[in-house]
């Protein structure tokens, strides 16, 4: 008879505040409950307060793994991208959030982990092993990420260049990257505002892109980031970068 395969929680043995920050965090019953409550509330909020419309919903994958990427103008972006995804993926859909903003203080980290189900990426002194870990988890679990390759919210309303980190997650794999463009977020909740205004949001979801033949090296990553950026610009009707 074969042994049973026990697979203890991948974040086993970490104290609670370390668990919030762990890239290997897995949620239990309490986490799942919080995620479902939070995201149901956010769905209603976006529908009522921002009249969120989703164009191209059929392009949203029904199964993990996948990565949703979009232009980044406000804290509403992650909500608008993750909310339309199916509820049964809730535990495995991880927004990638800036570690220095969302994971330094314990109460904020608890919110990011329990409600948003976010995973941290540290912008300063980012450990390349973190990206390696995220790449591995994406395929092994499998799970899904929401991320903004610009790395920070636009301060002017203009899209900036996509960083190549996104490429290192998907180069030489069949993992689909779903490009999206969110319109209206900069008007609703720009970085210098404290509260969102009731402006309309429109999310356009593009066809998934795959990069199985692109080399998993710096040139390949840059190429992937460029292609995704061009597609996001096209979806939003933004002029290509010169």
């Amino acid at each position, binding site marked *: 008879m074969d042994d*049973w*395969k*026990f*697979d*203890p*929680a991948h974040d*086993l*043995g*970490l*104290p609670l505040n370390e668990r919030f920050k762990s890239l290997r965090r*897995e949620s*239990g*019953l309490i986490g*799942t409950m919080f995620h479902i409550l939070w995201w149901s509330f956010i769905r209603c909020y976006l529908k009522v307060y921002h009249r969120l419309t989703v164009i191209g919903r059929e392009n949203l994958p029904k199964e993990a793994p996948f990565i949703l990427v979009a232009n980044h103008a406000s804290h509403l972006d992650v909500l608008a991208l993750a909310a339309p995804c199916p509820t049964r993926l809730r535990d495995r859909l991880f927004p990638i959030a800036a570690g220095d903003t969302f994971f330094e203080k314990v109460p904020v980290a608890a919110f990011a982990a329990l409600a948003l189900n976010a995973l941290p990426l540290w912008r300063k002194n980012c450990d390349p092993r973190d990206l390696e870990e995220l790449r591995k988890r994406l395929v092994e679990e499998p799970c899904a990420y929401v991320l903004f390759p610009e790395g920070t919210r636009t301060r002017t309303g203009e899209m900036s260049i996509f960083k190549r980190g996104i490429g290192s997650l998907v180069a030489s794999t069949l993992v689909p990257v779903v490009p999206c463009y969110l319109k209206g977020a900069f008007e609703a909740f720009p970085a210098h505002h404290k509260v969102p205004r009731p402006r309309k949001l429109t999310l356009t979801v593009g066809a998934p892109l795959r990069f199985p033949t692109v080399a998993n090296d710096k040139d390949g990553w840059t190429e992937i980031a460029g292609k995704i950026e061009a597609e996001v610009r096209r979806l939003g009707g933004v002029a290509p970068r010169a």
Partner: protein
Amino acid sequence: MIRQRLIGASHAFDHKVTLWITVGIGAALVVALLIIAILSVAGVVKDPFRKELWKRTLAWAVMAPLLIGPVLLGAAWTIAGITVLSLACYSEFARATGLFREKLVSAVVVLGILAVNFAALDHWYRLFVALFPLAMIAIASVSILPDSPKGYLQRVALGLLAFMLFGSSLAHISYMANDWNYRPMVLMLLLGVQLNDVLAFVSGKTLGRRKIVPNTSPNKTVAGHLGALVLTTPLVATIAHFIFRGTALDHLHLLILLGAIVSISGQLGDLMLSSIKRDLGIKDMGVLIPGHGGVLDRVNSILLAAPAVFHFLNYFLNLGLDQPIRIITGP
């Protein structure tokens, strides 16, 4: 009467054994802290052993009031405390075995834990015993729903064992709280098994050489276990004599049998958790208690002792039968 039993903290020390045990534990902690303080100041114990000693003893100083406090406050508090303890144990077990990924099974076990403690609070013995087979039906059924037969046996078995150990078993302490005189009994059980652990550790360290189950737990010795049995049995028998004076249980051979049950089932619970951890390939079940590991690492010896002691007492004494039954759901 019901209200007095559930939340009547003023009755905390009605029975003098309750007072003795509480004072005894308090005094033991103060003495232990004083001894460590003197040893530290005199420089007899050095780091890192000194730090470890402080950490463990301070953890006891926090844990002891958390365990004893609810028992003194009233039956409702006792049951609430056991419920929280059960959920904490289940959480650690589920994360260590991977069962937490089976959200449906997990939800059933959690509901089962809540239900069995509710049955205890309600003083509804029929529901209390029915929940065991009912939980089996529920766990075996919801495990079908994901339609993935691979791993079916494993998730059903883990779910059932979890409910057995952390729901049904621990809830026997909750059920004991239906007796008007539950405080000394519960404290005797808690003190008995925890002291048993300490005595096994001490006698194992001083006398032990021959290993008892080297593959399961390389540090445990035959002498340690026998030492604990020899020391715990008369201690529990003596306390029990003062609690059950004049009852059907108050005969020397029965009191000694009770003491032996506490000691042996306590040690078996400890070895059971060692076996589980060895099988999973992990050292501690959690990190909640500094110096001790997880909650489960600390309460492992109560898991088997609770039902064993409960049914032994219940056979001779009819626990709680002087109290009204079905206090919530009844007519």
